[in-house]
């Protein structure tokens, strides 16, 4: 059981985070080798746009928009947020100095970790609930009996699905810090 948790949940989580760090280091090294570090300074913009694009799922869940399959939007949410975070990390790798910018990057990494935690928690709960239901179906239980016996499991699954209650304030903190960094940049930067 322990080995299964490590293989199915801990390891993928660690791999997602390691892939993010490794990809950042690779791109950063390539920029330095090709002497095009200046590109990294601008990668913050597409990074932010990708992260904003990932909010389609969040808006769909809060019924701010009504089109799109939530499951598909969730895959896009994960992919775009990961890719956007990668670009922002490369942008951060150009070694900026200000504390506010570093706080924004820190909040972004906490946000990525929170998202991945939610993803694996929900996956595990869904898998366990399905396994329990299948076991009971195999024992010949009726639909009503099955619903009754998995009532608490269903409640747990619903509770886990509300991970976004935790994920949201972390995202909010990241959003405000990121916005403050962007406003400061717009305020002082000479765009030419």
């Amino acid at each position, binding site marked *: 059981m322990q080995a299964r948790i490590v293989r199915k949940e801990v390891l993928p989580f660690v791999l997602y985070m390691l892939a993010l760090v490794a990809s950042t280091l690779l791109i950063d090294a390539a920029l330095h080798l090709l002497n095009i570090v200046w590109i990294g300074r601008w990668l913050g913009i597409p990074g932010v746009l990708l992260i904003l694009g990932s909010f389609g799922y969040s808006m769909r869940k809060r019924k701010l928009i009504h089109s799109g399959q939530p499951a598909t939007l969730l895959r896009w949410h994960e992919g775009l947020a990961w890719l956007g975070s990668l670009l922002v990390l490369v942008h951060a790798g150009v070694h900026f*100095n200000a504390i506010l910018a570093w706080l924004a990057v820190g909040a972004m990494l906490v946000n990525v970790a929170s998202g991945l935690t939610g993803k694996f928690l929900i996956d595990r709960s869904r898998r366990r609930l399905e396994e329990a239901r299948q076991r009971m179906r195999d024992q010949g239980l009726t639909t009503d009996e099955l619903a009754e016996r998995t009532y608490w499991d269903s409640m747990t699954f619903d509770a886990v699905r509300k991970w976004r*209650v935790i994920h949201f*304030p972390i995202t909010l903190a990241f959003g405000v810090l990121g916005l403050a960094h962007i406003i*400061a940049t717009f305020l002082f930067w*000479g765009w030419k």
Partner: protein
Amino acid sequence: MKKRPLLLIVIALNLVVLVALAFIYPHLMVSPGPLVKGHAELATDCFACHAAWRGASSRRCIGCHAVADVGLRTTKGVPIAAGTIKGSFHQELIEQDCMACHSDHQGPKLTKRSRKPFSHALLKDAVRGRCSSCHEAPKDTVHRDLKVECGKCHQSKAWKPAHFDHALLASAALDRCESCHNAPTDRLHRQIQGSCKSCHTTEAWEPATFDHNKFFVLDRDHEATCDTCHKNNDYSRYTCYGCHEHSQATVRAEHVEEGISDFERCVECHRDPRMEPQETARGGERVDRRRNDGDND
């Protein structure tokens, strides 16, 4: 779920504090790096140089640094001692764009980009051609006799690589290679007293045009390695006994038979193996005569 507004309020308060800190300590919270030493006192006054939403403005720089004084006097009117640059070139720029070269924030330690490289393209044409108006001429042996502008050999982008043309030298300097170049100290060269030009050209050191035939003609029977005649690569000496053809006993016998007792300095008489040495001419020199029978010596 009722706790959520409280949580949001706590987060909002924290963020308000952070934003307030950004205004109170902008040099820590939003500055891309510490200011250069001369501007350290402006560290917390971002708008001394930056116009909101438009970035740093040359107009604000010029407000303190009058263009006519840049590089010549400080903002307090104190004359600046000339350094490596003879005078100020700021008055000769095609446009007053301070940020094209200066970024007063020193970058984080890993990047160090407080100053962008100066582009000579920003200089007015007339000034760009007169390097000496800003730069001191080098005083080393290569440059001290030159009277031409640096641009004849160097590019404005970098001092090296340069393309030196010896034609720029006066003829007197052109004949004195050693005034710029150190003579090679290998065995071949240290015994040579003449000018480098007798073997080398000003285009390149190699290939050299050393003419061995002046000393001894290397015909097809003498296509040997240098070490065959010049033992230990000592070019001040030679021996003809280095091959099977010329043994000391045979040479001695042949010359004694001819009544020649001085036969150790072979090339004195045998400078060209294709020629038969004649009898000693006036002044004690032998004159070579081309062999007719095709025999070798």
